[in-house]
């Protein structure tokens, strides 16, 4: 499978060159079955320049401390839990950590309300089970089981969306590092290198609280929203440009000024106050995460590329902004209008954005959440 003909290649494919360069120039000791030393993993995530001049692009923009604690956790073969509000790059970070440590970020259990115990433990090939009875060959291993056998990092997405009893089947795996298979009267023992990176979000409704027995088995790292406007602008610019390349959008990379406007609107509404702290704002119900800012910018680029002159302008951003902010028809519309009238209208140089947003009829918008 080459990276050209898929919509979104896995991290280890997209950054294969960087991973290879890092592994080649890494002279520090590696833990068992790791592709590179812990320090090289940190460098892969945070970016830098190697001695031979290879540039490693930053994957995560944020505190170094957090990445170090995350990698340190994996070194001690403890399970890692990444917690944060939606859009704080939890899954993104977990994918890149798995790619750098094991060279494989595809052992994933996706947590949903319908996730069953088979996807955490093992299932059966029923045709074989009936024909031959319980046997090793009739067993269908889960990603967890495969990771235990190969000594790789297993990712669990949205752990708290799984039903509580399914979550609890991780307890033995994490504390004993074994998975009993009573049907075959045997058990699978994990080889060194196996560990779990789980992500959970602490904002969404409808999550199943983790039992404290399971929580004890994780080291927890809380990923905060980007600390400064500049950091967030950097993230949005980099990711939007990357998305634009992947989707082969005929648009130019986004202008910094437009991105800064989007980021400022998101930060102000998220924080409930203008960036100068002078005006109190109503907070919309949505999470207004960095990830959503990225999709607003990318959506604007798509509009500009296919239906405009290729440059991202206020008119292309307006509908995306509206769709991102207004999740609840009544209360969010009020918050958005108030923001438009009190902040956007007064701000020097934002006249075009104000007019573009005015032109959209909120009652008939076709954005997300409609």
């Amino acid at each position: 499978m080459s990276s050209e003909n898929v919509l979104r290649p896995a991290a280890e494919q997209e950054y294969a060159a960087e991973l290879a360069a890092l592994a080649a120039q890494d002279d520090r000791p590696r833990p068992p079955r790791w592709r590179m030393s812990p320090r090289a993993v940190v460098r892969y995530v945070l970016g830098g320049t190697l001695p031979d001049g290879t540039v490693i692009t930053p994957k995560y923009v944020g505190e170094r401390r957090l990445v170090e604690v995350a990698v340190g956790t994996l070194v001690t073969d403890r399970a890692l839990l990444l917690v944060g509000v939606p859009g704080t790059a939890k899954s993104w970070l977990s994918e890149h950590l798995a790619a750098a440590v094991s060279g494989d970020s595809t052992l994933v259990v996706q947590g949903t309300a319908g996730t069953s115990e088979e996807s955490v433990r093992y299932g059966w090939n029923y045709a074989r089970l009936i024909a031959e009875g319980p046997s090793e060959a009739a067993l269908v291993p889960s990603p967890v089981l495969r990771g235990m056998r190969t000594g790789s990092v297993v990712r669990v997405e949205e752990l708290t969306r799984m039903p509580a009893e399914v979550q609890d089947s991780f307890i033995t795996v994490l504390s004993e590092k074994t998975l009993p298979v009573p049907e075959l009267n045997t058990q699978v023992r994990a080889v060194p290198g196996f560990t779990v990176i789980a992500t959970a979000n602490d904002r969404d409704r409808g999550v199943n609280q983790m039992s404290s027995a399971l929580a004890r088995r994780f080291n927890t790292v809380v990923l905060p929203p980007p600390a400064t406007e500049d950091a967030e602008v950097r993230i949005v610019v980099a990711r939007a440009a990357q998305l634009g390349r992947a989707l082969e959008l005929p648009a130019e990379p986004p202008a910094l000024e437009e991105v800064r406007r989007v980021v400022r609107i998101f930060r102000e509404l998220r924080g409930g106050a203008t960036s100068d702290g002078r005006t109190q704002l109503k907070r919309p119900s949505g999470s207004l995460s960095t990830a959503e800012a990225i999709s607003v910018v990318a959506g604007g680029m798509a509009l500009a590329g296919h239906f405009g002159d290729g440059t991202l302008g206020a008119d292309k951003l307006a509908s995306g902004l509206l769709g991102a902010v207004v999740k609840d028809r009544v209360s969010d519309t009020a918050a958005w209008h108030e923001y438009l009238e009190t902040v956007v209208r007064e701000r020097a140089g934002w006249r075009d954005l104000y007019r573009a947003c005015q032109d959209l009829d909120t009652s008939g918008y076709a954005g997300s959440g409609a």
Partner: protein
Amino acid sequence: MAGPRALPERVTLLGIRHHGPGSARMVAAALEAVRPELVLVEGPPEADALLAHLPALTPPVAVLLHVEPRRGDSGPGTAGFWPFAEFSPEWQALAWAHRAGVPARFADLPAAVSLSGEDEPEEARAAADPLGELARAAGFDDPERWWEDVVERHASTGPRQLAQAVAEAMTAMREELPEAVDSRTLLREAAMRQAVRRACADVTGDIVVVCGAWHVPALRTLPPASADAALLRGRTRRAVSGTWVPWSHGRLTAGSGYGAGIASPGWYAHLWECAVAGDDAAATTARWFAGVCGVLRGEDLPASTASAVEAVRLADALAALRGRPSPGLSEVSEAALAVLCGGDEVPLRLVHQRLVVGERLGRVGDGVPRSPLAADLERAQRRLRLPPGAEARQVQLDLRTPLHRERSMLLRGLEVLGVPWGRPHERRSPGTFAETWELRWDPGFAVAVAAAARHGTTVAGAADRVLRGQATQARRVAQAAAVLARAVGCELPGAVLAARAALDRCAAAATDAVELLAAVPGLATTVRYGSVRGTDPELLRVALHGLLARGCVGLPLACRGVDDETAERVLVVLDGTHEAVRLAADAGHRDGWRRALLRLVDVRDAHGLPAGRATRLLWESGDLDTGAVAARLHRAVSADDGATAFVAGFLRGSASLLAADARLFGLVDAWLTGLSPERFDDALPLLRRAVAEFSPAERRLLGQRVGSGPAETGGADWDEALAGRITGHLRGLLGVGG
């Protein structure tokens, strides 16, 4: 005149990091190796006399020096403190000298000069913690770990060579940062050199000088003595006295206003204790996490031993990842956050407060001289079983028991002296004999106690003098009343009399009735609880009556021609005084107050707000009948201006009363329904504005009341027998007799 010459060989300079356990280890080892005849330690020479008390001290303690106040000087005395923790190199040097029977002296600018000077300039960062700066430059955020892992581990030679290396590093650093050496530093270093010269003249053997690393380069060569002497000459000097005071880890932090403060005294103490016990790096980390688990368990948070093991492993992994030989404070904190606190900052803050800073309190033994006031305070603390503690705790006092009453007196006396050890709790419920205090002893109070020593030799005596002084200086009624309340609280008869006299004096001079009456509610409380405080209530009642009488005379006048803002104030005073009169005044003065209100409602050009309120108060007490009130309401609506204010004053704050009291409701109802349509139109905006001040819930209540039909007159279903039974029960409950 000779040129500069090198320091004699027999003088060893030990450059240290203030409150650095690594430096403390170096000093202890160097002293053992050199075994000098004299030890010089950076500090004010006036404290030399205090060194004899070393065995009676348990660190953290501080030398407290304060400038003796000049005669007639009433301002707060200037004071300075020089703290020492167990892990301070200075403390280790002093302790070694004491153990070895070797004399020790302080060497620095005399406190007489430094305390007389103007505001101290902020020390440059490099000068304040030069070794910390070096550690930061080397990529370590915990300077003590840097010292242990890099400096000590690689310095395989003895402590003297280590000191030599520090001196060379500092020389290079001072050359790099000449701007960090200010005139004050130069002055201090001249004084240090003078002390070294004197030491060289006094003893013939080895001398060890323990001083901040930053000063070492300046002490390595001795310029001609006359130059230093000239620099130090002509400085203002004032008499200084001082003692040892207990200190705390919290007061060692920079956040507490201590310039050379450190961020993590608890962590340093831990490093020092582990080093003394001979623990290696692994045991040091493990012991730390055992402590963290203890703190968390103490708060009923889950922290198992298994988690502690995982935390140690993560801290080690983080240190390895960062290329550090062993975990420092940032590694153990991050590991505690990820493993033991589940990523939650709140429990981590607890750990920070209890362990990283720590609330250890030092002790000063009995033999150490202290001011008579401090000694009296300590005696009182023992007698009343109120030991000072650095952590806040609450005490409940029942003023009817002598012990609790004395405790309350002590706390109030200290409050007067500017030592807010106890803070009275907000919920001091009136009408009971109970008080709730929150006690928290801040070692910095020692400074205030030392400054207050000039007022007297006992807490009561000093408080008495301070209160008498405040009484003579009081210019306004409110000030005098406040002094009186405090004097009653401290149970100081002399001060009570002085404050009473001051109150009379201020009341006589006061021209504003509102100012007079504003002091009445506070005074009424004092009157009611004066008896339990051992003050003659009659004395206070007379004062209250004096204020009331004067206030009543001026009240109607004070409501004429005032603006809305003043009227609001009058309204508050009116309510407060009415309540106070009801509670504490005798019949004669209650009558006087009633007459004052009656006069007020008859003043035609009085502001509507107080006039309206006075009307309602009088109606409630039965002094105005319903007809008279209705007439006044009608008159108010017909007036052009001030009508809103009258209705607002009448109705404000009475929503519940209006809804519940059939008479009041009936009165307003009758007035409203009796208005002609034109008059009703006139009154409508007024009413709306008056009612707009009610809360939504109150308005809803009123709406329901109005919707439920016309007012009940109550006459028809009045059951005299039933009412009699209820009043009988109430009398029994209240104990007022049948």
